[in-house]
């Protein structure tokens, strides 16, 4: 039996022609070129060891240990914006329990490494979000959770919503969904841990490898 293509045929989208993606290319925030702030002494010592013959073995082993430590104690700041925060709370609670991954929701940005932007970011809220993000010590990460935080979602063409939280802060992992169920967020957090485990010596971030399910 001959299988006919459906009529009319829908042309495949040309991604670079999509206006919203063009906007994303020009408007989204990137991490500063200078990288994370860290101790100059630590950098000198590690660079010295690395330059020493055979020293790379030491730094590689130390990297492995430090990356394991880093990714096993990512503390998200308790920061919920909208209905996605309910799913985030479910992820933190006993059934999905991200605490077994070392993630303790912490009520202070100064002790936190991760900000899960869970919900709609309004133009009025954006300066406060930026302030909380700036209060977090380096190295820090951001997970954009849900359609609203990714792109503005259903409110993208409204008057008061920021079209994606990446216009305010640099984002590492985007979790799609409206709202994303706890499993999605958990998957996003595991992807983030995967990213964190590729830190190179003296805490330089590796280029993230995009992963799409």
């Amino acid at each position, binding site marked *: 039996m001959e299988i006919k293509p459906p009529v009319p045929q829908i042309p495949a989208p040309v991604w670079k022609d999509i206006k919203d993606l063009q906007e994303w290319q020009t408007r989204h925030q990137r991490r500063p070129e200078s990288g994370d702030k860290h101790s100059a002494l630590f950098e000198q010592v590690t660079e010295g060891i690395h330059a020493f013959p055979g020293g790379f073995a030491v730094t590689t082993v130390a990297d492995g240990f430090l990356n394991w430590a880093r990714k096993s104690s990512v503390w998200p700041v308790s920061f919920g914006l909208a209905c996605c925060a309910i799913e985030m709370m479910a992820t933190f609670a006993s059934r999905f329990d991200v605490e077994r991954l070392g993630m303790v929701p912490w009520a202070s940005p100064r002790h936190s490494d991760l900000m899960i932007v869970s919900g709609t970011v309004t133009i009025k809220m954006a300066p406060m979000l930026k302030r909380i993000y700036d209060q977090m010590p380096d190295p820090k990460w951001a997970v954009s959770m849900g359609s609203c935080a990714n792109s503005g979602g259903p409110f993208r063409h409204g*008057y*008061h919503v920021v079209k994606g939280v990446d216009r305010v802060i640099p984002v590492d992992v985007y979790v799609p969904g409206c709202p994303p169920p706890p499993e999605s967020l958990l998957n996003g957090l595991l992807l983030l841990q995967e990213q964190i485990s590729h830190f190179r010596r003296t805490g330089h971030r590796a280029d993230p490898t995009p992963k799409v399910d």
Partner: protein
Amino acid sequence: MTAERARDLLAKISGVTVGDEGTPVVAHVPVEQWQGVAQFAKDTLGCGFFSFSTAIDWKADGLEVIAWVDNLDANVSVQLRTKLGAGNTACPSLVSVYLGADWMERECYDMFGVQFTGHPDLRRILLADDWEGHPLLKSYAVDTPHPPYR
């Protein structure tokens, strides 16, 4: 007090035209009588509860302000409407009659730019103080850029 009685009483006021039968009782009020009719609704019709206030942008015909008041004992709702006319944004405030109108009229000013004369504290309530324009007006472009975040 019933809806029919309220409609008859409102129809007797000169200048006021009432809507068709049924609930709520709709009264179209000239702007000059706005406060007076609201006072009448509160005292005579027993509508002590100010439910909400909003506006409609009729484009070329200007704005129309709506106030919804309820008589909770008799289950009678009265909808007061007034057309401000083209290009006019001034409307008398109902705060002197209903204290509950305070924040509602601030929201109405925030979204539609209706200038309520006699309002004790007319400033924006939901949007930031430095916001430009009034977003629920039909002339407001939806994708108005709002630096630095959009």
